[in-house]
């Protein structure tokens, strides 16, 4: 933003303690002597020209996530860290932490990785500072409070920045020396601790390092020493990546961006071929596969597919992604093209090579079909029911994605029935179709706790011929705290032969004085 010519200084304002204050400002604004935390009225008095924008924390968060997504090209371990407690204004300051252990070699060394990252971000319109150090704490400190004091010095142009990336790469041996002259705020300490340290005359990290540890820890808490140790590498610190780390990854960087679906499919198949080779060496098959397409303008498109059995054929990968990408339809926007394409296996399983059964039919066509349907319609739209041991009708089965368990279960006895599939000639006791939300019905009953003689449902009056019941189903008081009223279910047949499952909610007299009736299901 500092390269904009002919524009007034921009400041972002937000309400803090009943006053509008500057929460953030650009380079030209600092030259007028404006600073963060200043009242907006003061800023306007100093510089009437300023353009004031209202802060939007949600948009900030989205932007940080989007940049983090983009940074995925360098390493799978990217974390977004926020630090609102570290400043008085309670602003969420976002930073990205990349664990590039073992990744730098792919980009021609740490220096060219850092240069590439900064140059690309610069071309997207971001002015970023970055540092590479042996510990997350040290990198954090140097990126923000760099030793050369060039931060905020105004007209740093990009060429200069790239040339001097060397300054921002701190070798493990030099960490202590580089950190010493930095202010204590570089140790990620909150404002309260910082002011306390300032009162005893400690302002620089070096001063803190020279002091005996025990009195400091006693006075300022364990966190101070922990932060110091983390920065110096005495205590291991891990970053929490935003995405789970895939088991296997194959990617292709392209000299020319691609946008046609045919090209993307071709590359998916090639990458899938590489993954399948690795999977074969491990004796595994993929269960969850993720595709990431990095667009030239920094946007990242992600799509994932799941399979119901471990898969190790490149063609099967392609078939699933074809459906998945077709389902995106208008959401699929190649823009100016994709420059990097990555395929990763997030979940793998041991793949047992099995001979197709001699007598039983090959189940693979059906499981493949389930996967294809799931890829196109979403895993949550292709479901299989599993019986649950409960008396509550609406909880007697739960729907799970069919791909989770592809093998048809053996017939288990369902609750309330000895074995429903066993041969007997009894009529069914449960309806064929159940309403997810029971529908209220108006009834006329002879006695309050008896079955109705006629009822009106969906504006049609039904005269009841037979009523069978009640089947009393009380809520599970042993399992839940919000207990519903007891239900009395009746199987009902009307004069035309329609068969319903209706219930009265609430026991007359003890639970309610006006029981209500509901339609819960229809018998075949």
């Amino acid at each position, binding site marked *: 933003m500092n390269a904009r010519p002919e524009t007034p200084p921009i400041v972002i304002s937000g309400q803090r303690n009943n006053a509008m204050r500057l929460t953030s400002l650009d380079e030209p604004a600092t030259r007028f002597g404006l600073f963060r935390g200043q009242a907006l009225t003061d800023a306007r008095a100093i510089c009437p020209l300023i353009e004031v924008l209202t802060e939007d924390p949600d948009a900030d968060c989205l932007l940080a996530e989007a940049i983090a997504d983009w940074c995925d090209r360098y390493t799978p371990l990217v974390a977004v860290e926020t630090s609102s407690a570290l400043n008085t204004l309670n602003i969420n300051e976002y930073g990205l932490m990349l664990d590039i252990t073992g990744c730098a070699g792919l980009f021609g060394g740490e220096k060219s990785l850092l240069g590439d990252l900064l140059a690309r971000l610069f071309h997207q319109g971001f002015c970023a500072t970055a540092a590479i150090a042996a510990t997350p704490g040290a990198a954090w400190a140097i990126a923000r409070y760099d030793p050369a004091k060039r931060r905020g010095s105004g007209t740093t142009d990009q060429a200069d920045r790239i040339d001097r990336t060397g300054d921002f790469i701190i070798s493990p041996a030099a960490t202590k020396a580089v950190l010493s002259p930095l202010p204590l705020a570089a140790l990620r300490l909150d404002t309260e601790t910082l002011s306390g340290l300032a009162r005893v005359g400690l302002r620089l990290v070096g001063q803190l390092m020279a002091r005996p540890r025990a009195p400091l820890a006693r006075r300022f808490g364990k966190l101070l020493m922990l932060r110091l140790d983390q920065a110096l590498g005495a205590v291991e610190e891990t970053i929490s990546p935003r995405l789970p780390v895939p088991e296997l990854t194959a990617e292709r960087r392209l000299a020319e961006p691609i946008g046609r679906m045919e090209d993307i499919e071709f590359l998916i198949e090639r990458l899938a071929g590489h993954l399948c080779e690795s999977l074969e060496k491990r004796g595994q098959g993929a269960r969850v596969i993720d595709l990431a397409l990095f667009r030239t303008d920094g946007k990242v498109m992600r799509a994932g597919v799941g399979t119901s059995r471990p898969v190790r054929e490149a063609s099967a990968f392609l078939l699933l992604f074809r459906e998945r990408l077709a389902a995106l339809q208008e959401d699929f926007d190649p823009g100016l093209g994709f420059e990097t394409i990555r395929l990763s296996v997030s979940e793998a399983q041991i793949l047992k090579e099995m001979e197709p059964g001699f007598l039983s039919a090959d189940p693979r066509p*059906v499981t493949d*079909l389930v996967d294809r349907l799931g890829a196109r319609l979403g895993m949550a739209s292709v479901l299989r029911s599993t019986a649950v041991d409960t008396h509550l*009708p609406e909880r007697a089965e739960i729907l799970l994605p069919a791909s989770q368990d592809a093998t*048809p279960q053996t017939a288990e006895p369902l609750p309330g029935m000895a074995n*429903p599939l066993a041969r007997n000639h009894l009529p069914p006791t449960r309806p*064929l179709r159940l309403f997810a939300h029971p529908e209220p019905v108006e009834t006329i009953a002879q006695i309050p706790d008896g079955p109705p003689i006629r009822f009106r449902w969906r504006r049609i009056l039904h005269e009841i011929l037979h009523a069978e019941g009640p089947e009393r189903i009380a809520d599970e008081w042993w399992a839940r705290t919000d207990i519903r009223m007891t239900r009395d279910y009746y199987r009902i047949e009307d004069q035309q032969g329609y068969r319903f499952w209706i219930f009265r909610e609430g026991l007359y007299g003890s639970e309610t004085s006006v029981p209500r009736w509901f339609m819960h*299901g229809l018998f*075949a």
Partner: protein
Amino acid sequence: MAGFAISKPGQKSGPGLQPGIDRRQLVSALNEKISKIEHRPLRIDGTLQQDARPRAVSLGIAEIDAALCHDAGKTDSGTLAVGALHEVRAATALDLAASAGFALALGSLLAGTGGTIFWIAEKQARTEAGEFYGPGLAGLGIDPARLIRVFTKNSNETLWAAGEIAACPGTGFCLLELRGNPASAGLAFSRRLALRAQSANMPVLLLRQSGGEEASAAATRWRVSPAPSIKQADEPARLVGAPAWHAALEKSRGGRPGAWTLEWKRDECLFALSRGGAAIRKARTSTGKPSGHPGPDGPALSGNQPAQAFDGPDRTRTLGNGMALERAS
């Protein structure tokens, strides 16, 4: 099944050819012919794939089998095509559960009791008629674990999913639930489904909620409403008995329409005429009033016709009397 009389295959070949090779060629050529006639895929080595499933089944009730198939000699080999599209129609919303039950029963009859059942439904159809309920399915003799529910958001997805499932061998059957007569699921779509069902030899059942009659490629179209349930003599406590349906055969390719009251014997996986009597010609409509006799060539039932879907194909209208005007001069 097609029978071929092969008399002395050696005669066709020239004397110079080796008889072994010639015989193989002839058999594979015949196999190819059979595969074209019977729509059975060929294996790589040229032999016919053995079908676990018959091409057609018989309903097991002589009267209905006769109505389904004019040709009395063919009733032995089955009257209902397995690899075909069959439509089951619920005229009103109240008939939904009965017609769903009938469709499942018909699917079980056609596909046998094994294999996965796919049920495709849109959100609207599911709120109207409720979801299939596992314990209720078990009551019809269908293992709930066999049913895979495919929920779609729009008709495009529904039609795509139906096409994919209909093309997949090894599936039990596919139940496609539609609401009304959507324009996208017209004749061309039903034709495509029917062809896929034929090539995979898999029954595809179209369950139409509150829809009108519509020209389609379905082999049969049934209209189903519930009949008074069947009481168990040995179970006097059960007032509401086993399901029974009024099933009206509205359309049958190569057959004639008719109406019967059927019950489902879940253990034998068979339909049976309801014990109330033989064919109940006086099929009731949804309002309970008796309607006219089904004519041999007209539509089986008139009665409470539901409102036509406004975006569906137009029904042919009966023409009134025309009047020709003479020129005045």
